[in-house]
């Protein structure tokens, strides 16, 4: 398939590599021209702007930072699009923003789908991302071969915005999950109990989770390298809290968790992995 791709950062670049590996023809564009070079070397064609990315392609994918960036590049895509183009945004943005962009693009004859991912840089490189898609059946069918090059667990969640709702729900579970494991470890340590042993014991029971296993191990190793940066998790939890505010939805646990991530960013831990919340807990309880 002829695919256009916009946004070649930590996530976007390996996703494009996997699409090339899958035999697709890629046209790429990124704001920073130097990030395009490795992909041009690998056989992708370069475009001068988002409109050019859309020209002559059946599918356009974006993977950028935030809602205003998505809106901007998609405005460009709409200018270059032939009727019937499917545009898929895989960034994490607010569901309401995704729906708005979907409506705007529909007016230009572009079928827009939100399809954020979970699995981080590791999943992007391995092609094992979880992909949660929101939009029409037709758009999902068109994008599916591309999704299969980039991800494993691919779910069409519902209509426009539903993918972003699923992603926000994912961030609620992972945000509170990381905090829960960190609190359990702080609890064990303050009681003079070996947290490694606690983790081992818990892995066999109902408290088992991937987060206890993977993030828990990294907490034990005090390996705070990202992974998933705290400031990005904070940004995603802010999407959750803003949506809750708009809807009149009471989320006390998410609110408390969002404030812990807010404190991490404020105290200079934004570039560290979200498991650095353990350090914040230790500081608050005088455990350092």
């Amino acid at each position: 398939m002829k695919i256009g791709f916009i946004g070649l950062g930590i996530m976007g670049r390996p996703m494009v590599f996997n699409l090339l590996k899958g035999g697709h023809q890629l046209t790429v564009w990124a704001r920073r021209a130097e990030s395009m070079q490795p992909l041009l070397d690998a056989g992708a064609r370069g475009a001068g702007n988002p409109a050019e990315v859309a020209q002559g392609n059946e599918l356009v994918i974006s993977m950028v930072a935030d809602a205003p960036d998505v809106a901007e590049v998609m405005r460009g895509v709409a200018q270059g699009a032939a009727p019937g183009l499917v545009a898929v945004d895989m960034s994490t943005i607010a569901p309401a923003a995704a729906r708005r962009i979907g409506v705007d693009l529909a007016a230009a004859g572009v079928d827009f789908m939100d399809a954020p991912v979970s699995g981080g840089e590791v999943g992007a490189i391995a092609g094992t991302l979880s992909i949660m898609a929101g939009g029409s059946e037709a758009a999902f069918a068109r994008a599916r071969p591309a999704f299969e090059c980039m991800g494993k667990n691919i779910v069409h969640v519902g209509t426009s915005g539903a993918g972003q709702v699923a992603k926000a729900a994912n961030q609620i579970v992972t945000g509170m999950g990381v905090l829960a494991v960190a609190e359990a470890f702080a609890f064990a340590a303050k009681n003079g109990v070996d947290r490694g042993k606690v983790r081992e014991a818990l892995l066999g029971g109902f408290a088992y989770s991937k987060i206890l296993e993977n993030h828990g191990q990294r907490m034990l190793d005090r390996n705070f390298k990202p992974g998933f940066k705290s400031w990005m998790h904070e940004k995603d939890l802010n999407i959750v809290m803003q949506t809750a505010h708009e809807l009149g939805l009471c989320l006390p646990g998410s609110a408390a968790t969002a404030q812990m991530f807010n404190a991490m960013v404020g105290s200079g831990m934004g570039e560290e992995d979200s498991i650095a919340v353990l350090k914040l807990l230790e500081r608050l309880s005088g455990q350092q």
Partner: protein
Amino acid sequence: MKVGFIGLGAMGRPMALHLQQAGHDLHVWARRPESAAGLPATVCATPAELGRRCAVVFTIITSSADVEAVALGADGLIEGMAPDSVLIDCSTIAPDAARRIATRLGERGIHMLDAPVSGGTQGAIDATLAIMAGGDAAVLERVRPLLDCLGKRIVHIGPNGAGQVAKACNQMIMVAAIEAAAEAMRLATASGVDCAKVKQALAGGSAASRVLDVMGERMVNRDFGAGIEARLHHKDFGLVLEAARKSGVPVPLTATVAQQLNALMAQGWGRDDTASLLRVLELN
């Protein structure tokens, strides 16, 4: 003096009347003309026209976007106000938005003070509002006689935006106190104790506060008709949390209270008084 006024709601209307009664020539603009009915004022067709006629203009409207539209939009104040005239914005909006608006007006030589108020409808009627001003201190001194018509405590907090920061702090403390009062009243009642007696006893001790006095009374009487509509506190908490996020300052209590306000909104009590936080606790 010709004084302009935009925003003739529960707060704005009594404030505008105080200015008129102090002998000023009141000019108003209202999005819905009927809200200006019965006011001894000259009604202007657009904010720009109001701005052309008046050396000082007050605004007290709901959201950052509304203030930006009235001040900077098409037919906005910026198109009418003369250099060296003053916009006094008494709305509660984001500090960032206040700074943005001040900068844009400043490019035309128009002064702006962010001057949000506290004290509620009763404070507006009694002209006893607390006014927290951000902007040039000399400009505040020029318009202080006008502010004296509206409030008792007028404090210059700092440069533009500082008034809105103070107001955010005010809302954090006040609504958290309302939640604390609600939880205390709920605990008393659930424990089989007369919450009116508890409130009466507490009023004499260290827990005494204006919130316990006024909002506690409404809770005891189960009088949830507005005072200040809860939806406005809900809106303000959105601003506070956004400001906290931008500063990287953790506000765990504020965030929790915000969730109780979300629950209140979900019940459809947004136009009732914030004392309705008691009713949220009773949902459990």
